[in-house]
Every structure is written in structure tokens, then in C-alpha cells.
């Protein structure tokens, strides 16, 4: 059975296979949807959608059958806070579109523009089981931390050619310690500026002119913030200190904003308040370093405690070219007490809900996009690997530039006496 699947996977090496009817049978399915866990079941894929999921799905005669051999099948993973498609090499400016520095382009910057589905990091992240991502803009602070908003996040698909899935899934802002630096040095100054800016946004949103100062924000920036004050676009705020989180909860309530907390090292200390406000939290569970005075309470148990308090939690990978570590981050949260299924939810259905793409992805349900992964073992474990990856019903090539490099050099090591190699 394993050999059969390996051969099937080989057939996809050249290019993503065309959509068709595929039945993945004999699978241990974690649907992350209403059907829950199916110990032994079938997923029927028709073209780019899931047609059926369950223990007793009839397999049409024309379906290509893939026997999962009892292995685990999950929805494709969703990484939050990435630069996939916006970045080739971090240190090479020409290959990094995740941050911009232009007067008058702050909130107006949309990371969903200028995406490259051929970017090198994409296949490498995809081999970690990641099929969709929430790309977030970063600040360009080379001239000092003077931009208030980083810009707008976008949901992307890790299979070309049309990579942009949904733009404007969140407006990204730094508050607390980092936000203070963006507002001349004090937290209170940033809150005051935000209050005035949102007033101006409401004014232009109602067809008026912006009243007075807009603190360096252009008309384009203010316009970009209209969906935020309207509650159509969530405001994702990077903030760590417990007291700063509480202030941001109060500010969002006062301003009627939809809030997402990001980073949130000390969120566990105010978990009940976050749960009451029904605000989701996006975090990196392995970040337990007291890296700043706002993060002295950082702990590996942050995710577990938030989840126990009833907060919806999503996880990030380890940044830029280290997105494939997303699933290990979830595993590390599970290792210190987060229930396993909540760990998987934090990289599938939870980010889909938080960023408003759960109508398409995040769980294995009829009608949703057929994004799924067949795993050799436990998807959250360092000992498990992705065996097959489908995005919108298409089997993805199980190769990256890294596997090509490996395959070029490995024979020289395993069979040193054999002639050949790249430089013969």
C-alpha cells in the first residue's frame, strides 16, 4: 500500500496533476469539521472540491483510488503571519516585498499585490503540509520606527498560478512597546493618535473631509482603514504585555473594532478578559523567551491556558523561510498540555475562521476546497512527514529546490565509486 502511494506520488513529480475525481480510501481522517474524527473513511474529491467525507462513501467507478493504508489525513495546514509569495530571500531587498517604505503608504500597503507564485520558499513550506497562508506585511524600520500601520494582510494559496485567495483579511498594527516607539516613545501617544485617525476615517467614510491632522497618514491610508472602522476588516494588533492587551481590548470595544491579538506573550495572564471579548489570538507557541520587558511572563503554556479559558488560538511558523516548522510549533504546544486536536485546529480551522476563509478551507467538508495532506505519521510530530499533498483537488509535486539539491549530491555520498555528479 505504501509502495502504491509512493508510485502514485512519483507520477505527480513533474507537475501538479489535473483535477479529476479522486477517492482517498482507508484513511484515518481528522475533518476538523462537523464530521469530527473518522477512524477509517473515504474522502471523495471531484475536480477542486470535496464531494463527500465519511466512513461509508460510495466510490464512483471512474474515480482514481488512493489507499491511505490507515494513515492520518488532515485538512491542508494554514500558516499565519507569513511572507510566502512576497519574499524570496530576506536579506535581498529586490527579492523582498513584505515591507515598504514610501511616504503616504502605510495602511494602504496591501501585501496581496505583487505576489509571486514561483517564489522559492513556497514549495519548501508546502512540503511541511502548508496549503494556504495568511501573508502579513512587515514594517520597514530602516529609517526609524515611524510607520503606524504595517498594511493589509492577504490570504494566499500555495499553488499557482493564481495565488491570491482573498485580500484585506486584516489590517496589521503594532501596539504596546513597539507601538510606543512608532508614536514618539509612549504607549499613550499611540492610542491618542489612533483615536484621532479613526475619527478621521469615519469622517471620510461618511463622505466628508478628514478633520485636521492624520499623523502622517495619507488619504489612501485613511481610505484603507474604512473597512476597519466599519467592522468588515479585523485589526490585527501585535502586543505582548498583559496590561497592553487589556488596554487594546478596551480600545477595540470603545471603537467598535474587530480585534485579533498577535504575539501576545502574556495573553495567558488576561485569558478570561480575552475570552469574554471573543477576541482570537495568533501566536508562536515556542516563544517563551523573556525577550523584552513586555514579555517577561512568556511561557510555553500560553496556548494551553488560552485554549482552556475558551479563546480561539491560531499558530504561526518561525518566520519567512521557516514556515514549515508550523506543525512542530503546534506539537510543542501539545507537548505541554494543549489537547492534540486543539493543536491541529490552531493550524487548520481556527486560522480559517479568524481570517474569514472558513467558507473555503480549514476543514474537510463537502463543498469546501479539496486541500488535504496524507501523513506518514503524526502530523504534529518531528517523526512524521507529509506523504501526499492536495490543493484544490490537485496533487502537488513532492519536490522543492532543496530535494533537487539533495538528489543531485546524495548519490556521490551513497555510491562514491560511481562516476558522475554535477561537476563531472
Amino acid at each position, binding site marked *: 500500500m505504501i509502495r502504491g502511494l509512493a508510485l502514485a506520488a512519483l507520477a505527480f513529480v513533474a507537475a501538479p496533476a489535473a483535477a479529476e475525481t479522486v477517492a482517498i480510501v482507508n484513511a484515518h481522517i481528522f475533518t476538523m469539521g462537523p464530521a469530527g474524527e473518522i477512524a477509517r473513511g473515504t474522502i471523495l474529491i471531484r475536480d477542486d472540491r470535496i464531494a463527500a467525507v465519511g466512513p461509508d462513501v460510495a466510490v464512483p467507478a471512474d474515480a482514481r483510488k488512493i489507499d491511505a493504508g490507515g494513515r492520518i489525513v488532515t485538512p491542508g495546514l494554514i500558516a499565519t503571519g507569513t511572507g510566502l509569495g512576497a519574499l524570496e530571500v530576506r536579506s535581498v531587498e529586490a527579492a523582498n516585498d513584505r515591507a515598504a517604505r514610501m511616504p503616504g503608504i502605510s495602511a494602504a500597503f496591501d501585501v496581496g499585490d505583487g505576489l509571486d507564485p514561483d517564489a522559492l520558499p513556497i514549495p519548501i513550506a508546502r512540503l511541511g503540509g502548508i496549503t494556504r497562508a495568511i501573508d502579513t506585511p512587515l514594517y520597514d524600520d530602516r529609517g526609524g520606527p515611524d510607520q503606524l500601520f504595517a498594511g493589509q494582510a492577504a490570504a494566499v494559496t500555495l499553488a499557482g498560478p493564481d495565488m491570491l485567495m482573498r485580500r484585506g483579511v486584516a489590517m496589521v498594527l503594532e501596539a504596546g512597546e513597539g507601538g510606543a516607539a512608532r508614536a514618539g516613545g509612549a504607549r499613550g501617544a499611540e492610542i491618542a493618535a489612533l483615536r484621532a485617525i479613526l475619527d478621521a476615517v469615519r469622517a471620510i467614510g461618511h463622505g466628508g473631509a478628514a478633520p485636521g491632522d492624520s499623523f502622517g497618514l495619507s488619504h489612501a491610508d485613511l481610505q484603507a482603514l474604512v473597512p476597519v472602522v466599519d467592522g468588515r476588516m479585523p485589526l490585527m494588533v501585535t502586543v505582548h504585555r498583559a496590561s497592553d492587551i487589556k488596554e487594546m481590548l478596551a480600545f477595540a470595544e470603545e471603537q467598535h473594532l474587530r480585534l485579533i491579538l498577535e504575539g501576545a506573550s502574556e495573553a495567558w495572564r488576561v485569558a478570561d478578559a480575552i475570552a469574554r471579548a471573543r477576541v482570537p489570538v495568533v501566536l508562536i507557541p515556542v516563544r517563551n523567551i523573556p525577550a523584552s520587558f513586555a514579555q517577561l511572563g512568556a511561557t*510555553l503554556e500560553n496556548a494551553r491556558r488560552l485554549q482552556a479559558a475558551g479563546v480561539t488560538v491560531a499558530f504561526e511558523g518561525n518566520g519567512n523561510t521557516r514556515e514549515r516548522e508550523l506543525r512542530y510549533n503546534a506539537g510543542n504546544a501539545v507537548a505541554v498540555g494543549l489537547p492534540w486536536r486543539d493543536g491541529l485546529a490552531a493550524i487548520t480551522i481556527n486560522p480559517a475562521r479568524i481570517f474569514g476563509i472558513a467558507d473555503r478551507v480549514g476543514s474537510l467538508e463537502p463543498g469546501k476546497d479539496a486541500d488535504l495532506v496524507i501523513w506518514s505519521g503524526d502530523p504534529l510530530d518531528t517523526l512524521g512527514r507529509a506523504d501526499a499533498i492536495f490543493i484544490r483537488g490537485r496533487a502537488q509535486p513532492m519536490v522543492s529546490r532543496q530535494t533537487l539539491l*539533495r538528489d543531485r549530491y546524495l548519490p556521490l555520498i551513497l555510491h562514491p565509486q560511481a562516476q558522475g555528479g554535477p561537476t563531472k
Partner: protein
Amino acid sequence: MRWALGFAAALASALASALAAAQPVPRGLVADPDPFPSTYSPAPSVPTAIVGAHILTGTGADIPEGTILMRGGRIEAVGAGLAVPAGYRAIDGHGRWVTPGIIDAHSHIGAEAAPTTSVSDQANEDTSPNTAEVWVEHSIWPQDPQFRLARAGGVTTLMILPGSDNLFGGRTITLRNVPATTVQAMKFPGAPYGLKMACGENPIQTYGSHGRAPATRMAEVAGYRRAWIAAAEYRRRWQKWRGGGERGDPPARDLQLETLAGVLDGKILVHNHCYRSDEMAVMIDIANEFGFRITAFHHALEAYKIAPLLAREGICVATWASSWGSKMEALDAVEENAAMIDAAGGCAVIKSDDPILGQRLNQEAGIAMTAGRRAGIDISEGRAIRWITLNAAHMLGIDRETGSLEPGKRADVALWSADPFSVYALADTVWLDGAPIWDRRDPSDRQPSDFLLGEPGQEQAR
């Protein structure tokens, strides 16, 4: 009379110089091999037995159900079916795993301490491309909370290096991972010093972008060679003085050249940050030109391209499985680097260079092992554990003392809740010289460092 006076003066002068020769050289004008001696002493320990655990000894052996005896701070015996002598504290290891204490062969904690402040990067003396005269131990803050986090990850020994901004960054130091109020109390007794060198983009970014040398890789190579020529001359001056019975004034001491001369003497080990295969090959030629050895290439993401060469030269490769792509020289990484070095008969080491990864080197080794197996490289757990234990000890020059569970060695031991290569494995108990330094269930081991004392949230395990 005049003649007599002259004779007397000459005699006095000869006497004076004879006296001078007989007088010792004032302290500090001749190198003391150990001016900052270790004051580390093992904590008291009781004879301890871990019974019935799955033991990976670090020598390659894999004992599915074995017992390990520790006594007097040393490993007493390891094997299947060992009887527990009377008076030993017996720990039930059934269902759990035992490995040697983890050795992180590339860390900056203490020197790049948490929290980050404008003065917390104490690892890069980026004021000159050659700062071989600095010793990173003088930048280490023992209260850095990150030491405790590493203990919870099973790390018993670490090498702290200066940063990679300079061609010659300074001396490394190898530490025992114990709570301490002075760095001397952490120093691994007898561990050799290392010299941090760096190839490639970092020195170019640090200096070239400010209009200083090196701005190119060719200027980097010129910079290394210029320094080694000066070191060879310096060493010869001292050899001459010593060979001549140490008569007369010694040559002037130079801390920068003293460290380089220590490398030429074979007493200081070269730890060379270098990513690309072509750069590593050039560094090997430089070492041959001046007659020294490179102990290890660090990061070395392209080591797999020249794995047979590195194995022949006996140079260790301290690398990652997952990190890649932050810069051009890090583009050609493969997850299987360690496994390919190992398969070529080389010395593979997995290290952190990162305080978060340094808490889970066992997982990183697991990723590297799993990727290697997937590529068709046959690696046992017993072999892969060496990447974070015995091979690292070998690279640091401390493999006679630690790195494997062999009778007589220091009892540096980690007891894991599960397969240590799995993401779910937690270090239940960690021993250093037979004394527990971390117990997941003992709140006293969660005591924060002085810095975090009284700060919020410190009741957490980590």
C-alpha cells in the same frame, strides 16, 4: 685609576644585567595559560540508578531496556539487567528514554542575553574585523534567564561563541549549564578554548557596507592570511625567547596574536562560521598554508556538497535541519545535511545558534534523522543521538569527559518522557555530574534567575 674605575663600572653593569636575567619577568608580561580559572565544582550527588529505560548511550549503542548507575558524579555502569546496589536512589525509567546530556555546540546565550536592550548584544565586537583578542566569557551574564530554559531542554554543556560579524570574533568558552553568580563557576574545567572565525556575508555586511575592508570575499581571505602571517612571526619570537633560556626581556605581549598563536600551537580550536562549500575549501587551504587545523565548520549549509572532503580532513560540521534562506549564502540548505555528512563518514553535529531552538535540539535531530531516512539514508536512533552528544563533545575537545554514557565519564544524563527525537518528549530530569539540575516536577528547579525574581508569571515551568 681611571682604568680601575672603568673596570668597576663594567663589572657593576655586568652584575646588574646578570641580576636582571635572574629576576623573574613581572607578572602579566608572559602569557598565563589560564588567567580566568574555572571555579566550577559539581554539586553534591547521591548514588542514583535509572532502571528499565530505553538508553541511547551516545556511543552508538541502543539498549531497549537498560539500567544506568551513577555514583560520585560519574557514570558507574550502563547495561541491560544490571542489579541496583543497596543505597542507590532508584528511578523507574520504564517507558522513558535516557540519553547523554545534550551539548549545544553553538550558542550565544549569556552574551546575547534576554531581554533585548540597546546593550544586550555583547557577542559582536564589531569595531574591527579582527578582534581575536576578545574573550566571550567576559561578556557572559550568568543571570541570563535563557540558561534555565536550556536546562529544561536537557542541555548540560554549551559552547558560547562570539558573533560572526568579524573575520576573527574572539575566543569561545565552554560552560557547564549550572545556576551561578560568576562565569568562572560555569567554566568547563580543562575544556580547550576555541577561536571564532567567520566567512562570507556577515563581515562583508558589517564592514564593506560602511566603506571598510572587507567589502569582498577576496578581502576576507587577505585579512585571514595577513593575520596568520603576523601570528606566525609572533609565535617565532616567543619560541626564540623560550628556546634561548628565557634570557633578557620577553617579546611584547599582544592579546590578539596570542590567541592566533595558540591556534598554531594546536591548543586553541578553530570554530569557523562558513556556509558555502567553496568557502570551506578555501579555508582548508588557508589552514594548510599556515599549519593549523580547523576543528569545525559552523552552519555549513552546503557541507553536503563536499561531505567526503570534510570527512577526510576530520572537520566537524555543526549545522541545522530547518534553518535556511535568510541570506544568499544560506540558499542551498537541505534538511538532510547532517545525515549526508554522517553517511560520508564525517562528524555531524546539530546545534542551535538560537535560544528557542536550543531548548529542543533533540527535536531538530529528529527532523534531520527523519528527513535522512526519507531520502534513503539508513540512520539508527543510536547514531543520530551522537549529533547532539558525543560528536559535539568531540568537536569541543571534551569527549573524554562527557558526551556519552560510559563508565568513568561525568554523569551528564537526560531522562526523557518519550522518544527524544519526538516533538512530544520532555526532559523529565537532567543530571550534571550526577546531581539533578532540572526536574520537571520539582518547583525548586523552576526558580527564576535573579533578573526574573519577583516578575510576573514565574510560576510557570518554562
